């Protein structure tokens, strides 16, 4: 393998991995603080991808303003999601919340997927594919040509991860979210309001999922029925990185992205999806308790 080829694969792996990290982190933050296992997480990504495609391809917006609109719009969707589906579970034992949230969000995922596919096929294009091809010129780094859209994706992912990190470590609500994730009993005793925290986390988490969906289709196209597959990847990366752990999700996401890209190059693209299953298998084998709580045995 030549060096430029290696570097090109490396950039590709970083792009995919950064996207995995972003979607996994919002998934795992929701799981850690609210005990909601959001099966619809990947579907919100696909919805974000669809909304971005609509704004850019059919309404002619630039990519960055479109992403801004998508993030803002899905803050609202996240608020509604929390108020309608999760409010009734507030105050229940965490095990009950976990089980009922799986059922509720699984139903929601199927319903949203079907609606999106139907709407798109009927009113936009008969063959729904969500993809963005912004004209951002590529540039050369030494011998390597870096594609403009990919570099943009990497840049935006880095900014969003940085913003999430600052939110969690510097703001009151972020510290409250970490406190709730670390010790719910302690958080309740000192008078933190768990509803306030779960409202904030779900709102921001859904918006981050939608935004990562928009970014995703700048690198890899999606169709309306890939949401549950994406949820599975988010679940895997969050379990491998530690539930609620931002650096962990980043490392696990990038590792998985690189593994997929290099496997795809050497063994053929049909082997790439096997990587995430291998990771999930390893986590289940080595630290089964970690998939829901972030703590090993």
């Amino acid at each position: 393998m030549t060096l430029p080829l290696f570097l090109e694969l490396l950039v590709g792996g970083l792009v995919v991995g950064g996207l995995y990290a972003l979607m996994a982190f919002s998934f795992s933050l929701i799981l850690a603080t609210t005990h909601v296992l959001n099966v619809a997480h990947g579907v919100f990504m696909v919805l974000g991808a669809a909304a971005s495609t609509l704004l850019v391809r059919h309404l002619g917006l630039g990519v960055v303003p479109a992403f801004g609109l998508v993030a803002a719009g899905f803050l609202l969707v996240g608020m509604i999601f929390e108020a309608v589906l999760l409010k009734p579970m507030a105050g229940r034992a965490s095990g009950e919340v976990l089980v009922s949230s799986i059922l509720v969000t699984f139903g929601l995922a199927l319903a949203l997927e079907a609606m999106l596919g139907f709407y798109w096929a009927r009113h936009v294009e008969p063959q729904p594919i969500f993809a963005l091809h912004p004209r951002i010129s590529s540039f050369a780094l030494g011998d390597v040509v870096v594609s403009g859209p990919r570099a943009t994706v990497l840049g935006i992912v880095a900014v969003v991860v940085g913003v999430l990190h600052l939110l969690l470590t510097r703001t009151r609500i972020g510290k409250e979210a970490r406190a709730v994730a670390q010790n719910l009993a302690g958080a309740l005793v000192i008078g933190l309001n768990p509803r306030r925290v779960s409202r904030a986390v779900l709102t921001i988490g859904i918006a981050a999922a939608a935004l990562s969906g928009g970014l995703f289709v700048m690198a890899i196209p999606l169709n309306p029925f890939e949401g549950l597959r994406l949820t599975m990847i988010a679940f895997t990366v969050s379990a491998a990185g530690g539930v609620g752990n931002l650096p962990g999700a980043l490392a696990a996401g990038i590792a998985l992205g690189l593994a997929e890209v290099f496997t795809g190059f050497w063994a053929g693209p049909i082997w790439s999806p096997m990587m995430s299953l291998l990771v999930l298998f390893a986590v289940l084998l080595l630290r089964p308790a970690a998939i829901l709580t972030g703590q090993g045995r």
Partner: protein
Amino acid sequence: MREPHRSEPHGARGRAPAARGLKIRGLQVRYGEFVVVQDVSLTVAPGEIVALLGPNGAGKTTTLRAVHGIIPPVDGEITYEGRALHGMPTHERVALGLGLVPEGRELFPGMTVEENLELGHVPGRGPALADSLADVYRLFPLLRERRRQQAGTLSGGEQQMLAIGRALMAAPTLLMLDEPSLGLAPRIVDLLYDTLRLLGERGLALLIVEQYVHEALALAARGYVLESGRIVLHGPSAQLREHPNLQQTYLSV
């Protein structure tokens, strides 16, 4: 010695003196079918220090948890500063001035000492964050030294100080402490009780749950002895200390 203690506390002022402080009447709490607190009535006046004693499983912790809104009682009435607390979530009770230093401390182990303290502060209540922090650091200089350290790496005594400091950050008017001396070396216990005495002198009301009665009765003005979910003994600390066989009969330490 089941003499009724009906005299109203001296610290009460205003037109409705009976409404001030904490009042519990006929409290009953169950875990499923298991009745843990049968019938508990007690009062803590503003600024008063009261000990709640009793053997393991008598219902002391459960009483505190019911007052703090962590478990709902089946029966009885709890009021604080004249407000009925029934159905009120814990965060509203904290805003009303109730604080609890729970059994097991319940810190945030992966966060720094200072972050733990900051989280105890209730925005808009009491002094500003920086002033509250400075005050806690004055009370516990050790916490200032360790403020960048993760709470999970502190020793038992330091963790207890942090738990108390975190509760003080919310500017409580009544602080409930659940076995603050549990698992600590005697020297540390003395230090802790010195601090509690200081807090009492500042006018903070304390309700202290203990299995080990000496320190608690030396500090408190009054005490209650709980056994199998009922108050079996109640009176001024001096009287309880002189009670023949208090330890053997009721506390089985």
